[in-house]
């Protein structure tokens, strides 16, 4: 551009003109292309979240209703087994209930992320809370898995008898609940990965 001696500078004006001609956010096609894959990731996130909530709910209800009364009576064994006989199972029910409630309450945040694919704050909040939920769910699942394993196999070294031989239905229900909670754990890991994928910038 020409520099005259009257100190009139042309460069800022031409860039202002350039800015005036361009639309504010870029073309709609460009915006959709930027947020396109993030919207897909957010939709997949919502699907996984609902599945994880269902798995956690199934685990909670399955363990909470695990109760069996044997029809006979012996002098060595208790003839009734309920989930609150073992404190670990009580922790499992409480922990999975919290995780299920969190997953259900985080569905609106996930919907917000679908509507606004480029927003960072809800994504960041989701990834942090998902990590905490993952820790709680895995803790409950791991502890109960240890007790279920013990109930199936017993331990001769500690003289712990395998109670599953007496309480078949109770054992089946608790084992099924532990499997469902591990499914929720795997889904939560993928939820954390999806949130991390959606956080990247281009």
């Amino acid at each position, binding site marked *: 551009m020409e520099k005259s001696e009257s100190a009139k500078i042309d460069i800022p004006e031409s*860039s202002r003109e350039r800015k005036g001609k361009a639309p504010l956010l870029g073309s709609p096609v460009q915006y959709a292309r930027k947020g396109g894959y993030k919207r897909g990731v957010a939709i997949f996130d919502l699907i996984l979240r609902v599945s994880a909530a269902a798995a956690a709910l199934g685990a909670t209800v399955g363990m909470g209703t695990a109760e069996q009364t044997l029809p006979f009576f012996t002098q*060595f*064994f*208790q003839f009734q*087994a309920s989930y609150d*006989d*073992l*404190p*670990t199972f009580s922790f499992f029910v409480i922990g999975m209930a919290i995780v299920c409630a969190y997953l259900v309450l985080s569905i609106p945040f996930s919907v917000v992320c679908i509507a606004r694919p480029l927003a*960072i704050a809800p*994504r*960041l909040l989701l*990834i*942090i809370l998902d*990590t*905490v939920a*993952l*820790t709680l769910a*895995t*803790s*409950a*699942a*791991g*502890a*109960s*898995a*240890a*007790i279920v*394993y*013990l*109930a199936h*196999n017993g*331990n001769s*070294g*500690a*003289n*712990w*008898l395998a*109670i599953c031989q007496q309480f078949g239905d109770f054992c089946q229900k608790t084992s099924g609940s532990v499997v469902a909670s591990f499914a929720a*754990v795997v889904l939560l*890991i993928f939820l*954390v*990965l999806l*949130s*991390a*994928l959606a*956080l*990247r*910038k281009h």
Partner: protein
Amino acid sequence: MKGLEIGGHSGKGPANRGAAVVDFFLRVIGIIATLGSAIAMGTTNETLPFFTQFIRFRAKYNDLPTFTFFVVANSVVAAYLVLSLGLSIFHIMKSRAQGSRIALIFFDAGMLALLTAGASAAAAIVYLAHKGNTRANWFAICQQFNSFCERISGSLIGSFGGILIFVLLILLSAVTLARR
């Protein structure tokens, strides 16, 4: 215009580099914690001086499969942390890396799940060893094996510290990704 852009970008650069350094140190502490837990649990061996017909007179970590899983899980996590130190140093030098950060978050989440599963399973068995369970006729073995019990309870601390460190690591990586 270009000068303003670069100025705005480097405002976040030093903060991300600081976060990467904190990440590195957290990983080193995590290695010490998980390795300490694995060793503390793996070297348990208590032999009682007396002998009764009901109770075994020797307790070792691999008498209980859950403790074997605990030692294996902690060792695997410690090895993973050593391997991820290299990636952490790479992030200190190149703070704009995105893809490797996402991979690191994914593997950190997987290792967090493994560590938490091992630590909480061992915690359930340790609780049972301390209290027993009258309904299932499970006897509290801690009453006989005192030093074994102390050792297995203490080894849980390092593992739970490792869990906290992993949560912080994922948090740091996520915040660094978002602030880029």
